[in-house]
């Protein structure tokens, strides 16, 4: 595969969220505001890119028995960097995201890419695959948060877009709406793929 193909496949065709149903926790939790979603997405792209690169780099020297633990520690190290950077530069966002930054470690997308791709492929290819998966994930976050923030607060990235008469849908700020929107999204995309397959 060329590098471009690797990126397209991991970002869209095999998108971790809607095709493999991975990394749902944070997909749902941080999507009530677009800014939080964007920051979270960037954090995941950063962690994915560097951790897949590192894991691939040492793939021949890691004994199979401790592979999982080694991968977790590598991912953990990069997540700590993201956390420290956020706390220093964007303390407000860091506070709102709360435990979900740390939870990037247990986000199944990271382990999934590490196991499925980085453990067998060259470092640079793995990095591109990681960035692809991260971009695909961020895209889903942004779509969901677009709907939730627009209807729930009447704003986008904190800027008011709905007119004076707009009444906020308080359900969009609460947990259930995230489940419903993601379900509808998966439904639409699956239906599209079934049609394509026919």
């Amino acid at each position, binding site marked *: 595969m060329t590098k471009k193909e690797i990126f397209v496949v991991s970002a869209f065709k095999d998108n971790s969220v809607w095709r493999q*149903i*991975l*990394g*749902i*926790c*944070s997909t*749902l*939790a941080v999507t009530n505001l677009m800014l939080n979603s964007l920051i979270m997405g960037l954090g995941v792209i950063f962690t994915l890119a560097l951790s897949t690169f590192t894991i691939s780099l040492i793939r021949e020297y890691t004994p199979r028995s401790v592979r999982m*633990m080694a991968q*977790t*520690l590598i991912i*953990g*190290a990069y*997540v*700590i960097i993201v*956390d*420290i950077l956020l706390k220093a530069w964007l303390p407000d966002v860091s506070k709102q995201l*709360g*435990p979900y930054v*740390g*939870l990037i*470690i*247990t*986000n*199944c997308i990271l*382990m999934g890419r590490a196991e499925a791709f980085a453990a067998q492929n060259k470092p640079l290819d793995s990095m591109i695959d990681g960035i692809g998966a991260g971009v695909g994930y961020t895209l889903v976050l942004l779509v969901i948060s677009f709907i939730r923030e627009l209807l729930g607060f009447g704003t986008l990235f904190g800027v008011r877009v709905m007119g004076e008469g707009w009444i906020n849908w308080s359900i969009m700020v*609460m*947990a*259930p*709406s*995230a*489940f*419903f929107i*993601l*379900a509808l999204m*998966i*439904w*639409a*995309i*699956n*239906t599209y793929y*079934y049609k394509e397959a026919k």
Partner: protein
Amino acid sequence: MGITPFVLFWAAIFTSNILLTNFLGMCSYLSVSKEVESSAGLGIAVTFVLTATAGLNWLVYKYILVPFHIEYLQFIVFIIVIAAFVQLLELIIERYVPALYYSLGIFLPLITVNCAIFGVSLFLVIRNYSFLQSIAFGAGSGIGWLLAILMLAGIRNRLKEKLVPAGLRGAGISLVITGIMALAFIGFSGIQAVQ
């Protein structure tokens, strides 16, 4: 935080359900909930590990990380504590209660990567809980998770023969069901919220 451990325990089950309001532990929730029996098995294992690791991680944070000023290492340290505890538990159960090992054992490796366990440990630190509060919160969260997965498994069992649109089958319909459950759980929120 002045909430008594008793109130915290019930709040963690109903008003701030770890899965339905904090979205933690979704991966194994969606993939294991096909059968009621295995859901119950995993749920019980999660409850046990969650209660124990909440206490352990509290102790580790208070007596190791804070005195040495290495709080920033909490992510890695918590993960190691959880992984080590699960591994140890697996060995003990296999050695002394083989029957239990065959019914619960297969779920133990799944638990290390269950984000509910790790998430609860992070919540303890952020919300500054005391030791007893942590244990109560851990146990309550575990039981809340068990409740959610059991309900989903029961409903999915009923849906097996029903006609569900092809694109919605599997994860899609599970998410819709979970959304409806989350809506129902909002009804509890008048009691006491933990935020």
